[in-house]
């Protein structure tokens, strides 16, 4: 087993560590950095519970090696609130009841943030398309879509 030194910035904080070349980025975030908001769902890139922004792009962190994320900037769910203030998409998820069991929620929040940054006023179809990589087994997606629309209105107002 080989080890390699990596530098990864997570939610603005630099983390320098030496890790196994086999370590998944998801496990690096959850086990090494102890940030468990990013969820462990399928380990095959099918459910989206582990979605993070890697250099601004949403990816499934369960199918990326930690060493391949060397020198990158990562945003996880823990980085959405600033100075104890929830971001608008988090507020909208609460207000609209978009989280039930909440296990998929971190991934949905990250995918939604990416969408709203790229496209501040998305249509329902555009939201469905962007969120199609995230599975939710509880809500039937209605209230998640309601929340993204609500956040888009409040962010632009």
């Amino acid at each position, binding site marked *: 087993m080989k080890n390699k030194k990596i530098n990864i910035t997570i939610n603005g904080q630099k983390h320098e560590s030496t890790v196994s070349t086999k370590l998944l980025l998801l496990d690096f975030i*959850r086990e090494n950095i*102890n*940030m*468990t*908001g*990013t*969820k*462990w*769902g*399928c*380990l*095959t890139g*099918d*459910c989206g*519970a582990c979605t993070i922004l890697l250099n601004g792009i949403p990816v499934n962190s369960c199918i990326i090696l930690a060493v391949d994320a060397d020198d990158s900037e990562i945003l*996880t*769910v*823990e980085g*959405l*609130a600033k100075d104890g203030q*929830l971001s608008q998409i*988090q507020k909208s*998820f*609460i*207000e*609209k*009841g978009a*989280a*039930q*069991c*909440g*296990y*998929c*929620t*971190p991934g949905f*929040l990250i995918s939604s943030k990416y969408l709203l940054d790229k496209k501040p006023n998305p249509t*329902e179809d555009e*939201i*469905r*398309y962007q*969120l*199609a*990589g*995230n*599975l*939710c*087994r*509880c*809500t*039937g*997606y*209605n*209230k*998640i*879509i309601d929340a993204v629309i609500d956040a888009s209105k409040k962010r632009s107002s």
Partner: protein
Amino acid sequence: MLLKKGVLNLPKYSAVGKRLPRKDAFNVVTGAALYGVDISLPGMLYGKILFSKIAHGRLKKINTKKAENLSGVRSVITHKDFPDVVTGTKNDKPLFSRNKIYHKGDRIAAVAADSLEIAEKAISLIDVEYETLPVLLDPDDSIKDDSPVIHEDVNPPEWSPIKKNVCAFYTIKKGNVDEAFKKSDIIVEDFFETSMVHQGYLEPHAAVAQVNNLDEVTVWSSTQTPFGLRSELSDSLGIPLNKIRFIHTYTGGGFGGKLSLTVEPACVVLSQKTGRAVKITLTREEELISTNPRVTVKFHLKSGLNKKGKIIARKVKSFVDAGAYAGSATGVGRMSVDLGVGPYNIENVDSECYVVYTNKMSCGAFRAPGSPQASFASESHTDHCAKKVGIDPLDFRLNNVWVNGSYSHTGQKLEGIGLKDSLEQIEKDSDWNNISLAKNQGKGVAIGMWMTAGSLEGGAWVKMNEDGSVSVVTGACDSGSGATWGGLPMIASEELGVPLDKISIYIADTANTPFDAAADGSRTTYCTGNAVKDAAIQVRNKLFESASKHLDCNSNDLEIYDGVIRIKNNIDNNVPISVLAAESKTAGGQFLGGASYVFPSPEYDESTVGGDMTSGSFIAPTFAVQVAVVEVDEETGLVKTIRYVATQDVGFAVNPIGVEGQIEGGAVQGLGQALMEKVVYGEEGETLNPNLLDYKMPTALDVPYIESSYVEGNFADGPYGSKGVGEPPIVPPPAAVGNAIYHATGIRIRKLPLDPETVSSAFMSK
């Protein structure tokens, strides 16, 4: 887009019925909520389970030497480390395989190691010798005379006409169907078959166990029933209940799949052996080979109708594929025999159901266990009946359904049911008579019936803190619905006049909360909600007693409003709750309430039921009615849901956001079962699609925006007239979609899922 209707003018409430946030929401959206997979303790070891390589046979020899010698392995366990006990509804399930192997999900051994990687390596070093037996994958094969007996120690029910591999048998009979068929103008016959589907909770089973030097066991578990698991573990390992503490972590969905022990016994025994905390998380693959999904049921149906469109007689014969153990299949059998007939006034009924062992995953309690299967059969068949008699399917149902005062097939008098109201509501919501349809498009309606598991106890304490804030303490847990995190604090707020932000809720730790059965059976608001309401009323009464001394008046003259107790006709004469709460510490004692609720089952006519039926009635029956509009691609067989409309009989919506969430989420989970989901088995009893790419669940692109509503006013005994909400909405989609496909194409598809493969082959054999 929400279409909501109140049938009656409901009383004005201050908290319940409002759109208020859940108590867990902040932790969930910030990633702070700790789920089972997130729990980590100092010195924790990682566990891994070895599952059987064969689906049916005998265990000859296990050699764990090589695994034990691997560096970093701390313990290897097999059946020798467990008491020789069997569990389950028919006492047919060993914790770890001892002699017979019943399916590929059977547990052979488990290891605890310093890392998951070492544990995985150790598992691969365990040598197991098996003797194989023929694998049975279909109840039709299991009941054949020349098939092997799967459970040699389980006696088939003596009253069952079929014995081979049958573990339970149920009947409902009334009137005389054969005579009635002779008198019928029209006879309709059908066969339908459902598929095995998995709950698909996003968080896999995960638990951490720590056993201390006093042999006290603490388990953190992603579960729907901490008290249920405590009891099952106690029975399995012979540890008294007071020495076992189950702590419910945040739970990433359950849908009935997290109601029995899975990883916990191995965690506990490995912790006993090592003295260290042990964690086991199932992989998605292990979930899809070893857990407890919804099983296949096959239905043969025959109905006799008169020309006016009344159902005179219905005969149903069903076969439940239990899988390796009776598990929840006995419940599915009990539901199939009853709900397979459908929620209609029919004078002559003859229904029987056989529950049959095979070598597949054992049946679990997936959301409304048994009802989606029964609804697919009876509601597709009923649609066929409507077509044969030439009446619109919605009108046909309105003519035949149970109304208040009707009697169920087992003679239970039905009261407070909103089935007819719900049918009328869906007619309006969907604009049924004017739905515009293009070529290859069709509409379908279906009813789903369920009830409320009021016979399972719910308990809660309510205590007022010395600053006037309130703590609700309950053994109820929450696997996502929000009945606990959302609804229960609203009930306390309503009864105490204390705003929601001054109420906290502490849940589901068997050491320090009152007993509560489970987050199942659509029961939390119904049972635990009543317990919270009663406990809060006890606190309120004590507050009034204390306030009456302050205000020099009778308790009966007082009311509570926004944190203040005041005299009804003299509201300026008042005292804040916080003053009374502070005083209580030095005089009179704290304001504390506690209650538990359990409901008796309604009466029924015992002469109608037979076989293994031990109960023939339903507490607070509920109904979901849904309409699908679909487009069918005749070339590829792809069915697209263009519109989906769902309504439900809820009594009263304590937590409207939660109620809508259940209806919308249930409809989509049901659409998955209708259109895409199926656990596929190979000839050797192996799951062929044990991952979420091949076991496909609906994404946001696969479903339309669900048009949801609910019907209030047909009250039950839940708080404020509420009844169970969580399970009914998953029931109608398979039949609603199947009926819409028929309407679009004239082809009746008899097997789930209604995926391109099934639909296109039905077209080819047209």
